[in-house]
């Protein structure tokens, strides 16, 4: 997460309208899921890749590394879907065993379905990744504020986001401190250290919450975070045009 946020902040796309980026990413996501065709999925993936690497100038290596990591997880979760169970052996069976009370195996149509599903998932994930590597979290939060998302939700997101970093830093420094006192020298010791770290982190979170609350009050904080944004963004019409084109194409295929 640390990595994604850093990439987003450094990408060239950071100066472009978050609203347009969100519209593009979500629009494409719905096209991929809604039309559910292999060529659409492939086209969507290629378009997103093109925009991420060519337009937002996120390095191709980084992009594919992120995609590969997530695709591996997707692939692993698809293994179970590889197998079809039917009452009797189907005509397009490629491999299988007869098992009471029916048949378990791999079929051609099953493989097609799997391929379709995999491509669709990868394309869908790519759409969201595009958003993650081009739009910093605070831009998304501001966008939600501008479009009048419920205050409570925004405050929760905001504080959670801030807390994740805060906790992450605490976690890092506590772990370093443990390591420097040989806290992870063996598996057994390591487990104990990790448990202590977890418990300590819990208490620390509570204390930090208290401290944040105090300083919130000291600066007259009310029931919610006031809205403040000054960064102006350029419109990203290329994204919108591409999205529109993609919708038309997908409908035609």
């Amino acid at each position, binding site marked *: 997460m640390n990595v994604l946020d850093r990439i987003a902040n450094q990408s060239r796309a950071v100066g472009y309208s978050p609203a347009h980026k969100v519209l593009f990413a979500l629009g494409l996501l719905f096209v991929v899921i809604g039309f559910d065709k292999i060529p659409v999925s492939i086209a969507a993936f290629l378009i997103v890749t093109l925009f991420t690497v060519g337009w937002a100038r996120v390095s191709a290596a980084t992009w594919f590394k992120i995609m590969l990591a997530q695709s591996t997880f997707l692939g692993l979760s698809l293994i179970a879907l590889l197998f079809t169970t039917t009452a009797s052996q189907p005509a397009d069976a490629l491999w299988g065993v007869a098992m009471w009370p029916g048949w378990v195996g791999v079929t051609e149509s099953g493989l097609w379905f799997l391929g379709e599903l995999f491509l669709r998932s990868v394309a869908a994930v790519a759409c969201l990744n595009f958003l993650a590597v081009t739009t910093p979290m605070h831009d998304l939060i501001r966008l939600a504020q501008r479009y009048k998302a419920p205050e409570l939700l925004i405050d929760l997101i905001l504080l959670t986001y801030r807390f994740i970093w805060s906790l992450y830093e605490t976690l890092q420094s506590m772990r370093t401190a443990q390591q420097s006192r040989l806290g992870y020298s063996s598996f057994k010791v390591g487990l104990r250290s990790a448990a202590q770290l977890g418990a300590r982190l819990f208490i620390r979170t509570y204390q930090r919450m208290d401290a944040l609350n105090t300083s919130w009050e000291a600066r007259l*904080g009310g029931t919610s975070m006031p809205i403040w944004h000054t960064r102006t963004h350029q419109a990203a019409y290329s994204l919108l045009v591409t999205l529109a084109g993609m919708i038309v194409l997908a409908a035609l295929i």
Partner: protein
Amino acid sequence: MLQLDNITFDYPDGTTALRNINLTLDAGKKIAIVGPNGSGKSTLMRQLNGILQPTSGTLSYKGQAVDYSRKGLQALRQSVGLVFQSAEDQLFATTVEEDIAFGPLNLGLDRADVKARIATVADALGIEALLARPIHALSGGQKMRVAIAGVLAMHPQLIVADEPLASLDMAIQQQVLNLFDALVQDGRTVIIVTHDLDQAYAWADEVIVLADGEVQQQGAPEAVFADQAILDLCGWEKPWVLAVSQQMGLTPAAKSRADLLARL
């Protein structure tokens, strides 16, 4: 400006953190609060803008006893700004600019005003280049400066800062101290809670020594730090500029390192 009369404070668990505190904090003063660990410095600081309410005794601002209702506290906190020791724990927005805007927006100022205030404090603290950065991308020293900026942007009459210089390098420490001096010249009061006696001696007009929840001394640093009984009580050594001045028989004692060197 701010007056504490006979303030005593007990924590809910029964520990008495402050005992019969009587203090007058005047306008246009540089004040250092010093005291050993656990002497009640942080508790005292939290009394000053009503985060903690005294168990007994009165806090008055400009001659008026503080009203601990929501509205009264609002007024007090607008006038008394606190900078806490851990910068990490007082920044809650996602970007620097947003965090500095927090206080001014809570005061109900309009956008142009808020923007102007952000620009002014950012310039004063040398953090203009950081405004768009996310908080988690800042170093410790940068975070502390943002925390100070967030409080200064509310234009408090009295600023209380807990170890504000501890995480800053020497050049930035000097920058922040100069900024504090400018605020004081403007008629405001700056209070620093610190363990650095040399700094307290050189910078402050007035030193308050706190030990065991009681005010042991309040006065000019030359007088307070010359008091051997106080030094012994707190386990301190005399600030070195004062020690050298006394050893050499300089009267009045040199105030700062530069002053001392000039008079050698």
